[in-house]
């Protein structure tokens, strides 16, 4: 129902009186053309261009020589890149899991017919409407040991309270996870809530007759029914993971040291500050390959399922 799914075109749609169909169908196809071209030329073209550049020794300006895999060899010997890659994996896993858990709890909660549901839903969703820059700024202050939470707790009578993750190289990446979850949990909530609303309330009555506790009901009965919504939410969250950049820039600028570097920032830094287009594009290519290899099985599965199932 409410999931983001691409429906197979219905067979009957095209069966109309012949001439009218041609008359309407042609401009329709023309309307699609610019979009299709843009997708093809801009996205695919630029991606291929990036890949090509990654095999050159370009520095400040692009050159079109051929250095083979030299940039990739350098890339995988680069601490900064390896840290970035590790960080994006940590962030991705924790961020998606965290958002799903918190979002599910919030959705279950709102599903109890609480008062002011519409208002609460909007408040929970608000963080998602704010830019990562502002999110980063707000959390940078909140987690700053000298200004925010730690100071607040110490001032109000907990002198031993310590929360210095933001300035601790080992923990700083987790502060970015926290800010990210805060940003994305509301979106997950809204999507899962739509799914919860579609669950037949008779199921709960039946479960109650059988003496099933509420938590068990939600975990074993409802959650499996929400699978399409969980998939939708995961896909949306995953696109956020790939884009992780502005949050880091606003919160830590990659620091302390290089502890919160992420791949997108690595590419930017090498393009603009370090004048190393070759290495930057090599890192970008690795990112493209990573995303495609995660995406491909999913798209493939989807195709096979839809083609085999409905058409």
């Amino acid at each position, binding site marked *: 129902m409410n999931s983001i799914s691409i429906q197979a075109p219905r067979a009957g749609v*095209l069966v109309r009186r012949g001439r009218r169909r041609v008359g309407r169908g042609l401009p329709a196809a023309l309307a699609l053309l610019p979009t299709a071209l843009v997708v093809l030329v801009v996205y695919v073209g630029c991606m291929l261009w990036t890949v090509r550049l990654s095999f050159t020794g370009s520095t400040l300006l692009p050159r079109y020589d051929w250095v083979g895999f030299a940039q990739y060899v350098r890339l995988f010997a680069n601490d900064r890149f390896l840290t970035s890659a590790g960080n994006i994996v940590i962030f991705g896993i924790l961020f998606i899991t965290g958002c799903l858990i918190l979002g599910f709890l919030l959705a279950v909660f709102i599903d*109890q017919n609480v008062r002011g549901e519409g208002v609460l839903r909007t408040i929970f969703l608000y963080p998602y409407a704010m830019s990562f820059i502002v999110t980063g700024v707000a959390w940078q202050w909140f987690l700053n040991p000298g200004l925010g939470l730690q100071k607040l707790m110490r001032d109000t009578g907990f002198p031993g309270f310590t929360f210095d993750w933001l300035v601790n190289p080992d923990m700083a990446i987790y502060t970015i996870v926290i800010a990210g979850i805060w940003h994305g949990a509301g979106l997950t909530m809204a999507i899962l809530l739509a799914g919860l609303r579609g669950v037949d309330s008779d199921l709960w009555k039946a479960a109650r007759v059988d003496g099933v506790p509420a938590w068990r009901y939600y975990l074993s009965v409802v959650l499996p029914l929400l699978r399409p919504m969980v998939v939708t939410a995961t896909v949306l969250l995953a696109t956020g993971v790939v884009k992780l950049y502005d949050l880091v820039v606003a919160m830590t600028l990659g620091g302390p040291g290089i502890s919160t570097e992420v791949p997108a920032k690595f590419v930017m830094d090498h393009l603009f500050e370090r004048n190393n287009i070759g290495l930057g594009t090599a890192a970008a290519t690795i990112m493209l390959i990573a995303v495609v290899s995660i995406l491909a099985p999913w798209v493939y599965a989807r195709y096979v399922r839809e083609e085999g199932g409905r058409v």
Partner: protein
Amino acid sequence: MNPGIRERLVLTAVGWIAAGLIFFPVFWMVLTSFKTEVEAVQTPPSLFFTPTLENYAAVRERADYVHFATNSVVISLGATLLALVVAVPAAYAMAFFPGKRTKDLLLWMLSTKMMPAVGVLIPVYLLFRDFGAIDSRWGLIVVYTLMNLPIVIWMLYTFFKEVPKDILEAGRMDGARPRQEVWLLLMPLSLPGIASTALLSIILCWNEAFWSLNLTTSAAAPLTTFIASFSAPEGLFWAKLSAASTVAIAPILVFGWMSQRQLVRGLTFGAVK
């Protein structure tokens, strides 16, 4: 589920506490923006104080805030309008005249949304340099339009699908030309959907920082760039930074509150009705 009255009161209380916790960082930021720099870092933090507008005045003077805000408005609205102009005919074609490849094309376009933007950054930057588009409003408008186009088309497509075909067909029988069909029938009928889509596009443009940080310096820089330039790693000028951030999120918070339904539907990419 329908819990009893007492449970319900408890649940409502818990809900508001959760909402308060979630909203706290924002609330605190807004509060800080009305304090002086000294009060902002005071011990213990003051909840009651004489509000001051000096930070807003300072922000305005120091960095020509109006200039950045204007850029944000022009670019967001421009890119949204341009995206709608391209997307409405495309979505119309896909929803009412689907071909064999329509589904593939949609999936294709959506998948570009999942690709990392850094994958195309360097070529786009080089193109921008050649066309003199760096630090120009129209350059950002074009990039934002391309960036949001797949989502905008996808959302309009789902909304158009909900419009009963019979109505459009009746219009056709009465001799409506394709343009009339779209303008006089389809658009009015799916107005809430178009509004959700436009709102989403505006929010995405408004919040965008990846491209604006890298493709603009000052002339066309929007608010996100402005705030990022304010953000000192040690939290200096905290009150001023709060004021700048508050100003940047205020339109979205107010606008979003007025159109909650559209906001929820837009932010979830049309998945929630």
